[in-house]
């Protein structure tokens, strides 16, 4: 059975959705069967990245999975052909309409308990029955119901952070208060570390890597430089596909490889 990887962060703006979408496509192009699900119900973004266009045309959303309105087979959109991937690429989008966001934010404790139960069952369906090699959850940041549900129902989390002190402190807090409490495995991805066009000397990079390892007490999967053109790129396309030779794409390929070492496909 494949594994479920939740991509999480302590605050917004760390690059979580960009990284999730690109990793899913990179892994599928390598021949892995990948399901990517947007579980950030407060600020859905995969519908923009995957150009759902007029979202009224999408019939079923990941919201419907958690509320039990429809099964996963009807939520997942098959984008294998669109992106020419060797493996299957299935994407589940979260509903960006205000009504849907409001509904998800107003769920009762009982409904959140049901949502967790459904997510645990979803893991069995996607990795078991549907035989996915990787399931990637793009979660909402911080400690709130949708993100904790996603983390608790995952096998491992890729926690994305920047070097901003607020991010670092937030992640440290999350690791002890949430990940340790549930005994959940996690690895850290540090994004936008130093300017991509002015790379740091190896010694300085190594020192930072050791310092971050000690700060988080978790494996640091990668440190990705900050590229202005990535930040300015069209968010309705897959960066790695449009820019296969860009160092950011190279860094993400490396992340995909390392991720498969900690969360191997079956």
């Amino acid at each position, binding site marked *: 059975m494949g594994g479920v990887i939740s991509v999480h962060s302590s605050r917004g703006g760390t690059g979580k959705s960009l990284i999730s979408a690109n990793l899913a496509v990179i892994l599928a192009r390598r021949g892995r069967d990948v399901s990517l699900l947007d579980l950030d119900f407060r600020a859905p973004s995969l519908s923009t990245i995957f150009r759902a266009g007029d979202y009224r045309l999408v019939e079923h959303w990941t919201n419907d999975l958690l509320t039990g309105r429809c099964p996963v087979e009807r939520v997942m959109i098959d984008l294998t052909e669109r992106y020419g991937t060797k493996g299957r690429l299935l994407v589940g989008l979260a509903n960006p309409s205000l009504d849907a966001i409001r509904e998800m934010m107003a769920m009762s*404790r*009982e409904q959140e308990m049901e949502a*967790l139960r459904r997510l*645990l069952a979803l893991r*069995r369906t996607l990795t078991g029955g549907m035989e996915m090699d990787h399931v990637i959850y793009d979660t909402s940041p911080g400690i709130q*119901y949708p993100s904790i549900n996603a983390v608790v129902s995952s096998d491992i989390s890729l926690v994305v952070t920047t070097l901003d002190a607020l991010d670092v402190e937030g992640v440290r807090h999350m690791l002890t208060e949430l990940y340790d409490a549930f005994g959940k495995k996690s690895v850290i991805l540090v994004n936008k570390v130093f300017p991509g066009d002015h790379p740091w000397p190896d010694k300085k990079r190594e020192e930072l890597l050791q310092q971050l390892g000690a700060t988080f007490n978790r494996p640091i999967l990668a440190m990705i430089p900050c590229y202005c053109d990535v930040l300015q790129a069209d968010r309705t396309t897959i960066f790695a596909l449009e820019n296969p030779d860009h160092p950011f794409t190279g860094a993400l390929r490396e992340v995909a490889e390392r991720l498969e070492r900690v969360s191997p496909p079956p």
Partner: protein
Amino acid sequence: MAAEGPEGGQTSTAMERVREALDRISSKIDRLMEMDERILQLLAESGAPRRVEKPPEFRGALDVMTLLALPDHLRKSAMVVCEANGGATADEVAERTGRARAVESGYLNQLVAMGHLEKRRKGRRVYFFVVEGGSG
């Protein structure tokens, strides 16, 4: 290193007997608690006031925030039951948590008393389930 002598063998046999005895006691406690629950249920059905009212703040759904608020040892047991598809016995939970069956049974019964889990007997085995639709 000294080989295990006859005394070592006797100790392990004695330990085995103690473990079996503890398991028997634990099963009996389970049955007594079930009888207690049944009596309370019958009393409630007959309209008589309940002897012990469980504090309402401890009852309800086992959502992630409630799980986070549980003490570590109870959260571990509760998570195994949450992940089990179709309930779990104390033995199954103990196997996953790596704790003694008697200890695990105690924790699971605490979660039942707190209103987060319920137990149902299927033949000779008792299964623990997450309570659905708690009062919250």
